[in-house]
């Protein structure tokens, strides 16, 4: 179906999916009669849900203003959690059969509590993912996975075999590998795709069946490769960091590029963070998934994981060097505590390494877009 389309046309299709993120899932539900589980953002074993024959989708922040949700969650909570509460309050999540919350951030815990209350008919599950990295952490994550597996099995009225989990792992690994290939291409030829294109790729991957997404990417990748030499490369090389749980707004990404920058890499959740590592396929599947949480956090550290063996600021310095980036732009969701706790360390590390950085604290309402534009332009100008 995508074979005859150009890379731009495919990217447009993905952008459409991303713009209306639950539509394909709803269609899939009609087609298959199967169930959909919403993952309440960052850390969750999608593979385990997939293995039960349900479609896991990552709940997305919507760009529209929060209205009905104001009555359920205070305005001084982060945009990602408030937006999902708002969607639940407006009935937009009624198509879900279940959702999985997590304990990695108290704002997500609270948001899931509200969503659970607003959607009493939707099965409300929970993934316990212990923080830290001690001798027993891996085993404790396995226990959390077993608890979730038990609850999914009850929900789906079906036992999940190791073989099924392994099969799902393979499908998800393939998706991650394909997206990483696109990342590699983009890091060398940053103008090949805009960062909004990159976001569409990731976001669509989060909300449609992975098998379908893999097919699309397998079509897209050679087309991108074929284009790479015809692209003229210019612009200040920028690395984008942060934006936990929710995708950065397209407007912000466009402003970065309009200011004269090209994005050469990122550690966004709706970005490299989502696909950074594969899960080992030659290990008992739950043990492999648990190891994945520890390993991927070592490779792309997450401030919610409280693992003192990781060093996010140093990771950023290293990434800047690896991607030959000139500047770092940090996108921080307003009220995002894990991110706020780390900013002083990142600031110090950047100063020490002589890397210019710009912190953009973004409210869900995007009420300071003009200021953001001016700051970005002035910042990128510095490197020109």
């Amino acid at each position, binding site marked *: 179906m995508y074979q005859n389309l150009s890379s731009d046309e495919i990217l447009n299709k993905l952008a459409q999916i991303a713009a209306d993120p639950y539509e394909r899932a709803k269609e899939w539900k009609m087609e298959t009669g199967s169930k959909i589980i919403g993952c309440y953002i960052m850390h969750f074993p999608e593979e385990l849900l997939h293995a039960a024959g349900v479609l896991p989708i990552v709940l997305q922040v919507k760009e529209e203003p929060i209205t009905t949700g104001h009555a*359920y969650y205070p305005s001084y909570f982060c945009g990602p959690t408030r937006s999902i509460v708002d969607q639940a309050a407006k009935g937009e999540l009624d198509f879900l059969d279940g959702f999985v919350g997590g304990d990695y951030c108290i704002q997500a815990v609270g948001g899931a509590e509200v969503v659970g209350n607003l959607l009493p008919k939707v099965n409300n599950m929970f993934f316990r993912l212990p923080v830290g990295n001690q001798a027993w952490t891996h085993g404790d994550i396995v226990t959390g996975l077993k608890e979730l597996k038990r609850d999914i099995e009850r929900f789906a009225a079906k036992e999940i075999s190791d073989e099924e989990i392994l099969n799902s792992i393979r499908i998800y690994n393939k998706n991650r590998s394909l997206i990483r290939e696109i990342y590699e291409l983009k890091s060398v030829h940053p103008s090949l795709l805009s960062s909004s294109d990159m976001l569409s790729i990731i976001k669509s991957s989060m909300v449609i069946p992975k098998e379908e997404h893999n097919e699309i990417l397998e079509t897209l990748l050679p087309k991108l490769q074929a284009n790479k030499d015809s692209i003229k490369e210019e612009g200040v090389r920028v690395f984008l960091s942060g934006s936990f749980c929710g995708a950065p707004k397209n407007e912000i990404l466009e402003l970065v590029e309009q200011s004269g920058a090209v994005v050469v890499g990122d550690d966004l959740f709706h970005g490299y963070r989502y696909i950074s590592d594969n899960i080992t396929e030659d290990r008992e599947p739950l043990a492999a998934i648990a190891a994945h949480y520890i390993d991927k956090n070592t490779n792309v550290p997450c401030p919610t994981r409280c693992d003192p063996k990781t060093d996010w600021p140093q990771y950023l310095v290293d990434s800047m060097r690896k991607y030959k980036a000139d500047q770092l732009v940090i996108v921080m969701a307003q009220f995002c505590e894990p991110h706020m706790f780390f900013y002083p360390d990142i600031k110090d590390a950047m100063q020490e390494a002589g890397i210019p950085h710009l912190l953009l604290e973004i409210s869900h309402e995007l009420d300071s877009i003009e200021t953001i534009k001016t700051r970005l332009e002035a910042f990128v100008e510095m490197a020109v």
Partner: protein
Amino acid sequence: MAVQEAKRANRLKSGKLVNKLVNEYWEDLINAKKTGKKVVYTTGLPIGPFMAAQDMAWIHGEGYGARVAARHEEKEPQTFAENKGFNRELCSYARTQMGCAMFAELGVPDDLNPGPIATEIPAPDAIVTCYPGCSTGPQWDWAIERVFGKKIPWFNVVIPYHMGRNGSTYMKGEEFEENVKYVVRQFEDLIKFLEVVSGKPYNWDKFQELMGVTKKVGQLRMEAMELCKAKPAPASFFDWSIQIAPVNYLTAWPGTIEAMQAVKDEVQERLDNGVSAVPNEKYRIFWEGIMNWNKLGWMADKFASYDATVVAGRYTHMAFWHEPDTIDPEHPLRGIAINHLECQLNLGYPITEERMMTLSKDYSIDGIVFHGARTCRSFSRSHFLLAENLNKKMGIQSTSFEGDMVDDSFYKEELVNTRIEALIESLEAQKSRG
């Protein structure tokens, strides 16, 4: 129209005994290094006895923040933290203690002139996190670990959220039992960690003795608070907030049994003599949210002036050794785990709502004040749901306002006045309708 006269809250007098113990504790802590004691930083619910058994000193992050604020010294550490890049939307306890810790580690910058308490925090020899119901707690401790150059050993006891899965309810069910076992196992590892830090085998006899004290103090406090189910109530939520130290960072400190016994005796005596916390109690209020330490006295008088007693609160009544009977001093780990797991912030929404309804019934609550502490999102996460559902299910009216624990820049006095007044008016209207 509610009439506000200048009445004062009739605070408990025996609380003064606690002050003496508080002073002893800080003296001991500040001189810890001189006396050769190791210092452990902690946050979250009280775990002092774990350290006290090894003759180590401990600093409770929130307790430190609250003390700095009570002495009106919070501005400088908060400013220092902000200048270092810590956003003012972060937990204000964390910002305050981080500011103090940075004074200790980095020195006081020339443009700041902090008070003596803000600058006397000793550097840590270890960090122990034991934070139920808030991801900010461990993240705060991690930030401390980084401030001190990633050299300080850090042990994080993960307290799993008790969501209420598969029918598990307060202190019951498969999820609860699994969680208890998990925490007990981590406490066993914590003890091994403390042996290493202190360099000596664990003193179980002392630990058991201290947990005996903890149990007793917890029981006395719960009994004293329960006496306030009487109408009018002999003591208020504000008294229980002021008396929090003996069940918080002063847990098992010598003299806490006597201090809490004196408090309970005074409450009993008041009850026998018909003395109440508020001179002319007409309304009974539940305080929902963490305490606003800079405003405690003002708040107590404010409610008294409306003939309203704030009788109970989630902060005081659902935590701090609130289940003392679960502690077996001979085998204390399970009881400690239960008190942590089943505390006010760690319970899933349906369990929280059920506990609040029970307390509202037990304490004959007419109205609820929701204090939305701006930088304690763990507390305020369920406020809107609770307001709606307690009204729907029990007809309880409420009001809400924003404030904070120790950052009074989030606090708008005019708004607070109007909101409290509006609540009292609607309670008055409700009473007059019968």
